[in-house]
């Protein structure tokens, strides 16, 4: 066979015309050249020599650690209001607050129920120090669960008539850990555009898709839900994998308004969206017996997947919590980062929380007193002509912003600051402007002075506050060097 084929090849070469052979020879050489030639691909990386690498390392100049401008600064209006130095406080910030050595009537801190100086809470704290020491010296998993933690968890759950509570050492960590423990990449979260910063951080950490609806706008939420439903119908396979959540606040800290929870919870039931409610302000402040927004609006609590709350404000203790059904909350104990990987709440502060809750439970008139004050203050504040008041009448948080802007956000802020300090100096009343990291907030509201109402205020004291604010506004806003009212408004 070999011979024959060899012979055949030989024959064909001999018989072939010379031009044919030449052509084949050239073609053959060309293929070799194509294969052998060095490829030059402009998009491909050239390996760097050791010398070149060293050069790059030598020339690398990092930016300084303290920056004066970064990507966050570009295209964002506003500056850092936290730069305002409101002073250093001494002693407990109760009805009166001592700032840099002088006493002022306190309308700045969130002491709604006046529990900051409540002797029985402080007594309980001291007793717990004698029993448990200060720190818990470990996370909940590793001998950091003390009986008072369990007691407080049970008390909160019982107070709200829910199954289970997870206690956090810091109220900021509660909701910001809880959201990402359920919502993951690919899930959809519907959130109110004015949710507080802790929720915003939770939303970022979840890496889910966030759809913001207009503040307290049920129709806008319905529109978004319908859009989602449409998308689901188009892609039913994907729709099966997506979990949906809705996050709202009971009373919004940024606006003082109450959330239309009834409508939202019904929508959530209809569209099978899980609902999380942050009651940092409303827990212990609203509702006939202080059980929060669900009690006030008469929404069944089992329609809500979890409620988060703070013990640091109205309750005058420390820490935060997530409360809901066992099915939902138990998961926190394994996957809530701020729960699992953090030392637990110091036992004495949990003890204080138990005592505070007992007080609310046995004295519902405390809530009534607070609400009377809130309503009274609301009425009085609304009589001021230069300010726009934002806040539900029963909300202990009220924002006062300038009715007409004086040019820019910056000017407004300076004016409000001046008013706040004028009130402080002349009427011995402490009020503050809420601090925001304006470059990182999702939405910016007009600058405001925030009034935090508490139960201990008397009617005449609230009258004084309003008079002082009126006077201060008169003095500050009538300065000759101010720009006119009619100047074009800023983008805000």
């Amino acid at each position: 066979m070999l011979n024959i084929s060899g012979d055949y090849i030989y024959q064909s070469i001999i018989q072939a015309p010379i031009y044919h052979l030449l052509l084949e020879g050239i073609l053959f050489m060309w293929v070799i050249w194509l294969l052998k030639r060095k490829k030059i691909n402009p998009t491909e990386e050239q390996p760097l020599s050791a010398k070149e690498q060293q050069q790059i390392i030598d020339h690398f100049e990092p930016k300084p650690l303290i920056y004066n401008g970064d990507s966050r600064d570009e295209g964002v209006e506003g500056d850092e209001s936290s730069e305002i130095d409101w002073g250093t406080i001494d002693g407990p910030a109760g009805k009166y607050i001592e700032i840099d050595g002088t006493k002022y009537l306190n309308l700045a801190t969130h002491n709604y129920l006046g529990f900051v100086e409540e002797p029985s809470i402080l007594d309980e704290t001291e007793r717990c120090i004698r029993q448990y020491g200060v720190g818990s010296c470990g996370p909940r998993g590793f001998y950091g669960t003390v009986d008072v933690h369990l007691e407080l968890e049970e008390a909160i759950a019982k107070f709200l008539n829910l199954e289970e509570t997870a206690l956090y050492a810091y109220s900021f960590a509660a909701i910001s850990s809880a959201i990402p423990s359920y919502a993951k990449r690919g899930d959809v979260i519907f959130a109110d555009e004015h949710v507080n910063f802790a929720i915003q951080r939770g939303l970022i950490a979840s890496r889910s898709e966030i759809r913001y609806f207009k503040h307290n706008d049920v129709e806008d939420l319905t529109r978004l839900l319908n859009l989602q439903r449409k998308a689901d119908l188009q892609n039913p396979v994907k729709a099966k994998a997506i979990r949906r959540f809705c996050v709202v606040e009971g009373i919004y800290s940024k606006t003082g308004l109450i959330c239309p929870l009834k409508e939202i919870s019904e929508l959530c039931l209809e569209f099978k969206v899980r609902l999380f409610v942050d009651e940092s302000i409303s827990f212990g402040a609203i509702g006939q017996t202080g059980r929060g927004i669900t009690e006030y609006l008469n929404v069944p609590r089992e329609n809500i997947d979890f409620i988060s709350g703070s013990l640091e404000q109205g309750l005058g203790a420390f820490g935060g919590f997530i409360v809901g059904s066992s099915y939902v909350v138990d998961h926190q104990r394994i996957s809530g980062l701020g729960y699992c990987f953090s030392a637990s709440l110091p036992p004495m502060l949990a003890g204080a929380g138990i005592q505070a809750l007992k007080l609310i439970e046995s004295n519902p008139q405390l809530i009534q007193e607070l609400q009377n004050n809130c309503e009274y203050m609301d009425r009085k504040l609304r009589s001021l002509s230069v300010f726009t008041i934002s806040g539900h009448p029963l909300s202990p948080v009220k924002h006062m912003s300038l009715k007409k802007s004086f040019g820019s956000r910056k000017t407004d802020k300076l004016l409000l600051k001046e008013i706040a300090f004028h009130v402080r100096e002349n009427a011995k009343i402490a009020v503050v402007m809420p601090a925001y990291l304006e470059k990182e907030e999702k939405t910016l509201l007009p600058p405001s002075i925030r009034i935090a109402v508490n139960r201990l205020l008397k009617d005449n004291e609230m009258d004084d506050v309003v008079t002082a604010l009126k006077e201060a506004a008169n003095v500050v806003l009538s300065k000759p060097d101010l720009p006119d009212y009619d100047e074009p408004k800023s983008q805000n």
Partner: protein
Amino acid sequence: MTRLDGSNHYCRNGIIPAAVNKIPNIITKVEEQKNPMKLVEEEVEACSLTDALFAYLYLTVLFIVGYANDFFRPQAFQESNRVGYHTLYASFESFYTRHVFRRIRDAWNIPICGVPGKYCTIKDRVTHDNGWTFEFTGKKIDCINMGSYNYLGFAENTGPCAEASSMSVRQSGITTASTRAELGNASYIVELDRLVARFVGVDDALTCAMGFATNSLNLPCILDDECLVISDEKNHASIILGLRTSGATIRVFKHNNMRSLEKRLREGVIYGRPKTHAPWQKIFIVVEGVYSMEGTIVRLPEIIDLKRKYKAYLYVDEAHSIGAVGPHGRGVCDYWGVDPRQVDILMGTFTKSFGSAGGYIAGTKDFIGMLRKRSHAQTYGGPMSAPVAEQIMSSMKIIMGESGSGEGVRRIRQLARNSRYFRQKLKQLRFVVYGNDDSPVIPVRVNMISKLTYCVREMRKAGVAVVGVGFPATPILEGKIRFCMSASHTKEMLDHVLHAFAEVGDDILLRVSTNMPSAEEIVYSDVEVHEKIQ
């Protein structure tokens, strides 16, 4: 002595660099020139094949039983009023919790009543439904506490710290009900900031009410999407959360492995950002001082050299090292004899050594000034509670020797002696011990979670409270029992624990180390600590 290329660490036993990468479980023995006494022996033996096989077999059986269970009783774990909703949990996560973790749940979240000091009182509980629910029996069990982070023994309900803390409750209340950027900047917090800066040895410090939040809320203010972060693979969850939410690009290097770190640094500097190759604006190295699950101590001098070489910034989380290591209790910088100013950002917590709660970030005046304005915790979170801050200040002053007694030094030395003694003894008993000889966290390898649970249960019966860490928190083969040393432990207590653990170890074949320690009797009072301290 062989010098490894590129970095400046030395191989004592002559392993060539290429081989280092191929043997994952062996970390080269390193000698630091500045501290010739400190040998970092962080060698861990590989798990034997039989152990590995059984560990996997165990999980497989549990999984099969679990799936069978789910198949025959699909309605066993369902929500009542959420019909038609999407399942809340990823299926594996939920499966693992129900069928694996549930069975061994009693070894975690053990409630105590009383001080988590040298002893702790465990509230006894039983389960009648295989771990779904627990009931308290009303019995209380006193145990030697080897589980709490109470390094210097400041978890006390009597004594000067508790006294000071209790005083402050009336003086300042327990909450300011305001953020620090508004009217919550209490004078005790200002004082605490200054004291911490002085203790750490830098210009300024900023404190935060929660240790976890110190990392997770401040890292996003330090980093942005123009930064590259090179992070140790064993970094704590709070760091990881902070890094993730910061938007920075994260690259991970092998635990405490300087070659891996240098490789990542080189890549970062030379190749810049993916796609565009524009240089990073800043490169950060993020490490911990003492790793709480590994018991290792960070190789700080080498990292500082690398940081200088590649012009990176260094962030050290001293959660477990501040107070607990170093001849003066000032953390890893003190331990390695490094000036703390060479580390750009020092972070730490007060939960462990100071028996309190919260954390700090310390650095230069300008840096902390910037952070004060930008920190999420400052602007949106309340400051630390007054009694918590008071506990930190009083215990810190004792450690610094400013209380007038030698109590601080005594505690630091006692802790160091306890750690070394306990470790050496464990090694002599042929347990597989992780980490650095000077670290107060002592993990022992137990492999699989059933052994882990057995250990925790049996040790509790013997009157010792220990902590177990297993899958999924660690790789499947690296389940660990962890002992946390405390200055309040006495030699007798340690001996009791060692005796009990040796028995448990015999039961379940834990004493399998192939290293041959010397048979010489270890005498507690002869254990050498902190040679330089007077």
